[in-house]
């Protein structure tokens, strides 16, 4: 156990964690950024190595402190967590490459050390949640992620004071969600005497009829629904995304809610098991209507927004509806659609938010009324935005098409009136997405440039990462072996493992 590669599971979480306090001590604009970017790159590299190892040799377990589970805490990398690790570290690295120019404009220099420390902590939290195999350890890292994200969102206050209330609202709602999760885990511990996820899953069938377990499952599902902003628990999300600094929005849009989805999948499929989740709990009846209501109503709300960031935030809630729909269908193809969409949406949405970040950098506003003619002022950025928008709508060749395709397949497989109804509703929702993206396009290309506005592109250091995301989204829309292949294997693994 001395080889470095055997320590990879812990390195993924511990490297950003230990870099955070070091980062906090540095002043200046360049050093904290450079440290954070390099660290994030390291986690990306290690995640890929872990994933390769998992594909070749099956799940990896790592015993923290050398204590065997369930006495000690265990780190588990399987297909799903490896997939999430790569996604999170990749998005984080891409966003950080972008951040240099953007963040020095939005956050005062003397705070950058602490700012990037908080960023690293948020990254640690997300990676820690995905890699751990211990239900209480999840809570600890959930807290790290949440606390740092409250602080990061509040940093938007340098541009708009409303960021403070947004962060406060998120803090209150997020804390309620986390407490629900903790209550649920506490009840499960009471009934099983263990906190290790695999161990709970093994002992679950014996006790699944008991009332405390029903209550525990309820608390955990609702707590996570709040954390992942499932409609109608989404109220915190639009405000937070709107007022947070650009890079934070881009980072969280791709990752934070997805971590919540990951936990939900983990609990529904691994801990509770398919039979209990959809038999005893009848989660389909609860999640399916919420998902459908979510993607329909939120797409409509998005149409009426005057602020691009808020528009995209509501669109995010709608997209989460698709993701949850896949879970609610309770089938292998549904789960596969969910996982594919987690990946695709994360890349597309981060790319979109980054291009909005470019617009903000140049135009100083993200309100539609201030962005008239932005398509001619910043042709490269806006074209990127439009391509990302196409991905959101689900035009063929874009990643959005792939995930919607699988959702439709899963719906048809579900069969009956519900299945075909879902297909129709998915189409309606896509049309709504066309409308809200078109609103931006109209403002960007068909309105006159206001007097005195200069024609200027964002700096290359911002444009390149933005286009990296957009290009990646097209790459994964056409060449789908990675995302679809892994999603398929993961779905089979989760359904089979239950």
């Amino acid at each position, binding site marked *: 156990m001395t080889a470095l590669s055997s*320590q990879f599971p812990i390195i993924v979480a511990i490297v950003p964690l230990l870099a*955070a306090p070091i980062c906090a001590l540095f002043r200046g604009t360049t050093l904290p950024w450079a440290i954070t970017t390099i660290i994030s790159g390291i986690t990306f590299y290690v995640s890929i190595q872990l994933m390769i190892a998992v594909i070749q040799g099956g799940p990896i377990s790592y015993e*923290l402190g050398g204590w065997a589970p369930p006495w000690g805490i265990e780190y588990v990398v399987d297909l799903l967590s490896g997939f999430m690790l790569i996604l999170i570290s990749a998005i984080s690295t891409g966003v950080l490459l972008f951040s240099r120019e953007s963040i020095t404009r939005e956050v005062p220099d003397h705070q950058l050390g*602490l700012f990037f420390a*908080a960023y690293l*902590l948020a990254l640690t939290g997300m990676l820690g949640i995905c890699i751990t195999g211990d239900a209480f350890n999840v809570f600890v890292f959930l807290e790290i992620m949440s606390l740092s994200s409250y602080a990061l969102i509040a940093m938007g206050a340098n541009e708009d004071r409303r960021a403070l209330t947004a962060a406060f609202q998120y803090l209150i709602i997020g804390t309620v969600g986390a407490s629900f999760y903790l209550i649920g885990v506490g009840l499960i511990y*009471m009934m099983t005497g*263990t906190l290790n996820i695999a161990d709970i899953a093994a*002992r679950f069938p014996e006790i699944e009829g008991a*009332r405390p377990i029903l209550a525990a499952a309820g608390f955990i599902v609702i707590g996570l629904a709040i954390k992942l902003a499932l409609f109608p628990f989404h109220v915190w999300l639009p405000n937070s995304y709107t007022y947070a600094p650009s890079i934070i929005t881009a980072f969280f849009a791709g990752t934070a809610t997805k971590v919540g989805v990951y936990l939900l999948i983990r609990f529904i499929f691994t801990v509770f098991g398919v039979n209990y989740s959809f038999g005893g709990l009848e989660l389909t009846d609860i999640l399916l209507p919420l998902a459908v209501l979510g993607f329909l109503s939120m797409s409509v709300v998005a149409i009426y927004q005057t602020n691009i960031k808020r528009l995209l935030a509501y669109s995010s809630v709608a997209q989460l509806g698709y993701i949850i729909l896949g879970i609610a269908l309770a089938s292998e193809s549904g789960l596969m659609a969910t996982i594919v969409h987690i990946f695709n949406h994360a890349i597309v949405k981060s790319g979109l938010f980054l291009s909005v970040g470019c617009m903000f950098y140049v135009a100083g506003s993200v309100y539609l009324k201030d962005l008239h003619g932005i398509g001619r002022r910043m042709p490269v950025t806006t074209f990127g935005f439009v391509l990302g928008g196409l991905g959101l709508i689900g035009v063929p060749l874009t990643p959005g098409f792939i995930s919607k395709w699988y959702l439709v397949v899963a719906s048809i497989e579900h069969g009956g009136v519900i299945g075909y109804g879902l297909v129709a509703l998915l189409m309606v929702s896509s049309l709504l997405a066309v409308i809200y993206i078109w609103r931006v396009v109209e403002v960007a290309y068909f309105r006159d440039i206001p007097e005195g506005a200069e024609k200027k592109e964002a700096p290359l250091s911002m444009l390149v990462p933005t286009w990296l995301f957009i290009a990646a989204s097209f790459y994964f829309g056409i060449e789908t072996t990675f995302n679809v292949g892994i999603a398929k294997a993961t779905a089979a693994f989760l359904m089979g493992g239950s």
Partner: protein
Amino acid sequence: MLLLIAGALAVLSVRNLFVATMLLGIVSFTMALIFISLDAVDVAFTEAAVGAGISTVLYIGTLALVGSQEREKSKFAPGPLAVCLAVGAVLYYATYEMPRYGQPDNPVHTHVAPRYIEDSPTEIGVPNMVTSVLASYRGYDTFGETTVIFTAGIGVLLILRQRRRRKKEVTTEDPPLRDGKGGSISGLGSAHDLVPHVISKLLVPFIFVFALYVQFHGDYGPGGGFQAGVIFAAGIILYALVFGLDFARAVVNEKAILFLISAGVLLYGGVGVVSMLLGGNFLDYNVLSSDPVAGQHLGILLVELGVGITVTAAMLAIFYAFVGRPELLIETSTNAEQPGKERN
């Protein structure tokens, strides 16, 4: 238990926020008593120190900023009430099939715990089993919690510092903060009260000694890094309250605090990294010394120290950040340049 409910209801009904804060302190102490009667001494200790001690001080610090009267009668909000009642109802529902409390054949007592109880004396050799579970078996959780504290400290520093600059323009017409209400708690100290001065001068050394005892005696009795850190911070805060913030700053200034918060986390993580370098897994203390039990001792001692340092520094950071605000306003109105220097 009844006292707890009565206290909580009283907090809700009282209109004066200062009274509410005091009542919250009482509630916390009652909670601590309940924890003791449930044989969870370590938890009770923490609750008393954090809930009744530090939080109360922080609330008072905040009240000094915002005034102690509620501005308007808060509206009756049915939504949250319904949520609370629903949560209560579900918990009550869940209690029906709960295993009976204290029964030896409960799942909690039969699965993981026996190993902790039976083997921890030989594997870790620390008399206080709670400490061995917290610091070794589940040491990584504790590391995570320390990081949570660190995150909280960073967050407070980030948010409260950024508003410093903004206030500059506003503060010139903000005289009320200079009089009694904010004054005694900010930089000025309670200069006229002889009794608190003498008493606290006598008390502070004892508090520090007690904190150190709790810190290093955590292996044997209840206590450990968290509690010790809080007590240590409480000592400094008491000092600051009575003598004024400037004196406390002379002992530990803000730059040192930032350094200490980071140092605690790094110390804890450093132990983990060293154990990795020595060929074990992360936080595997067995490899720290040739004798596994001695290694465990050393490891626990070091990580508890790391926890203590981070907790102390984070508590102080939060306290300074809140309490330093009114003082800052006075400073900025007289000398607008000062906070700029101080920041570096």
